[in-house]
């Protein structure tokens, strides 16, 4: 009531008000722009970023397209098949064919769907997946688009918004399977985001920064990868990351054998392909985070030495080249792991997924924070590590200490998990025998009981 009233009064009492505002705005705009947008500003803040974004989108979309091909090829290899090999040499044009097929398909919007949200959902998914690409450290210097202060937090936040795409898509379809998929997805995301966030906290103890480049630099200055210090955290992250990207064995939101396709059951053609691209982009993002946090990002021990051998003019370029290559290889390895997992494991059940999230990964992540902090303080007290201008410095003794302590901290965590899950059903599954009696024998049945 009030809102309408306010609107009406605002527009009716002074109809000229809005017009004059617009007029003033347009009059002021050129002046404002010239005063605020110097040519250098324009190149720095508009031209360069747009160029970088364009190049990166091109590269990432190609990578994503070929990731789908890689997925199919790897799965074919795992399953002793050939895989796509008809479109182009070795099936290399398959992604293009797939893309064209999806583009020219009929775009169906269900009659009873909430059309606005239905259209919005894939866009949310893809935009969020792509925004994150801006802060990934592909390599040193020119090879990354931007380096923001809260890089890691930014990635987590944006990908948590990306979940909305799945949820809203499932809801807006106005159909039961997508709704179930959306329900599953929202529960799953909330649970596993918590686990991811917590496991990253323990990594932050060593990285001392949220900035993605900063994390790489931290490892570069130490000359080690944090996977050595943070092995339990890495495992928790990896498992949660698979869940976060909705991939098997955690692909409950789509679960084609149960929910027919889950949240994207009603999507077709281009809209479906947007979801598809978003999913694979998310895979790339998550593997990039894992590579950055635990595997040194674009840093490989010894690359500085190699660069130092070269003439000074080539150093930067060589470093960049090596960095980008190393980063791609690391991401590729993790992506391969994801694909491998998908084609090996059966699918979790909804409640088992929740159990894994809340009773295994969460306690492990929490315990790991405590343990890592304790280890860090211990190392600090022993004088093995000192903080210089926010970056850690340590000698080889420190590195050995943290490595050993990191791996040893697995045991208390496992002990804790054992204590928590000792009596749960899933914990005792391995006790299940896998052979069955063969001898022909008559089973003793209780005598038939007459129903009353």
């Amino acid at each position, binding site marked *: 009531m009030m809102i309408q009233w306010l609107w009406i009064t605002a527009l009716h009492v002074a109809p000229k008000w809005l017009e004059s505002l617009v007029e003033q705005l347009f009059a002021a705009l050129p002046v404002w722009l010239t005063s605020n947008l110097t040519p250098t500003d324009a190149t720095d803040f508009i031209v360069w970023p747009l160029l970088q974004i364009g190049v990166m989108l091109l590269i990432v979309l190609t990578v994503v397209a070929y990731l789908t091909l890689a997925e199919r090829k790897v799965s074919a290899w795992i399953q002793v098949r050939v895989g796509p090999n008809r479109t182009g040499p070795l099936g290399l044009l398959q992604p293009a064919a797939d893309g064209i097929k999806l583009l020219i398909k009929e775009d169906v919007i269900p009659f009873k769907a909430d059309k606005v949200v239905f259209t919005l959902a894939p866009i949310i998914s893809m935009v969020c997946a792509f925004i994150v690409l801006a802060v990934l450290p592909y390599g040193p210097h020119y090879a990354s688009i931007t380096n923001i202060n809260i890089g890691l937090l930014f990635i987590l936040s944006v990908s948590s918004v990306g979940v909305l795409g799945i949820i809203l898509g499932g809801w807006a379809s106005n159909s039961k399977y997508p709704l179930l998929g959306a329900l599953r997805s929202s529960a799953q995301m909330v649970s596993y985001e918590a686990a991811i966030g917590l496991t990253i906290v323990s990594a932050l103890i060593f990285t001392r920064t949220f900035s993605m480049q900063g994390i790489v630099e931290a490892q570069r200055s130490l000359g080690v990868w944090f996977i050595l210090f943070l092995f339990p955290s890495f495992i928790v992250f990896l498992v949660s990351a698979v869940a976060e990207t909705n991939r098997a064995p955690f692909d409950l939101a789509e679960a084609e054998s149960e929910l027919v396709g889950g949240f994207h059951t009603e999507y077709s053609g281009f809209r479906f392909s947007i979801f598809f691209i978003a999913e694979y982009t998310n895979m790339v993002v998550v593997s990039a985070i894992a590579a950055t946090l635990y595997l040194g990002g674009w840093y490989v021990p010894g690359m500085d030495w190699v660069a130092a051998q070269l003439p000074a003019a080539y150093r930067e370029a060589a470093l960049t080249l090596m960095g980008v290559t190393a980063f791609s290889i690391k991401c590729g390895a993790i992506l391969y792991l994801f694909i491998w997992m998908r084609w090996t494991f059966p699918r979790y059940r909804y409640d088992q997924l929740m159990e894994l999230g809340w009773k295994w990964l969460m306690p492990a992540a929490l315990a790991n924070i405590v343990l890592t902090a304790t280890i860090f303080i211990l190392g600090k007290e022993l004088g093995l590590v000192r903080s210089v201008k926010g970056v850690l410095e340590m000698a080889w003794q420190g590195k050995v200490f943290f490595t050993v302590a990191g791996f040893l901290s697995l045991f208390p965590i496992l002990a804790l998990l054992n204590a928590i899950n000792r009596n749960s059903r899933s914990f005792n599954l391995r006790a299940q025998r896998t052979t069955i009696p063969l001898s022909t024998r008559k089973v003793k*049945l209780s*005598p*038939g009981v007459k129903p009353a």
Partner: protein
Amino acid sequence: MSDETKPTSEATSGAVTPEAAASQADAEREAKIAAAKAKAAAAKAARTASGESATEPTSADADKEAKIAAAKAKAAAAKAAREAAGDGGDAASPKPAPAKVPAKAAAKAPAKKEAAPAYVEIKDDPLITALRAAFQDDIKEAVTNNGQQIIRVVPERARDLLWYLRYDASVQFDMLTDVTAVHYPDRKAFEVVYQLYSIAENRRLRVKAELPEDQSIYTVCDIWAAANWLEREVYDMFGITFEGHPDLRRILLPEGWVGFPLRKEYPVEYRHNEWVAANLNILEIPEGADLTGKFE
């Protein structure tokens, strides 16, 4: 199950209840049909009754009833109607007479004879002997054919017999392998066939109950859970009503289908055009079309 329908081995309440449950409307319909056919049947029945009695495998009792029916068709139809409505006096008797059935069977049975199957009476089997002792004349015969044991029982006691075989007999038949029916249009009857199996004794037994058309039989759902779907299928295919069945719906054919395909009078090639048009929306019925659906 309510007390009323709970069967016991000595009382015959179980045998009577289907009759009691049959509605008055049913009985009236029966009476009308019987009355309408009576006149025509009387002459025909008189001609065929003697031949029928020789081959009819059920009992001399039926034959006797048939003769009565042939002589006094109208009276028999009235009696059938009364019994269908559930005559209290008749219910108390240990062996309810299947009155209306042979009357109609006799009335419509064709003169064609069947070759007598090689059924051999079972003589010395402790289980069968015990059954005979417990059920007396309700077991019409116990025979073997192709080496397989068959018990024929009056439909009213079929459930009691199966209950007995499941729980009380010396060989407990714990598995109901199959329930099916066979239609004998010339006798105007179905044979409801129960295939039993005892896992412990590795023994099979077939129980058959000859059920007049339009009469219902008791469910055995609560004795063997397997009977649920099997009886539904029999209902679906033959239209036999199983009383006390918790969920008697069509199972293979869609809801709303007309007719029971495995009855002999149902044509092999048949399309229920009305149903197809209404439910599948693939057929437009032209004006004045023949909706019987029989193919040329």
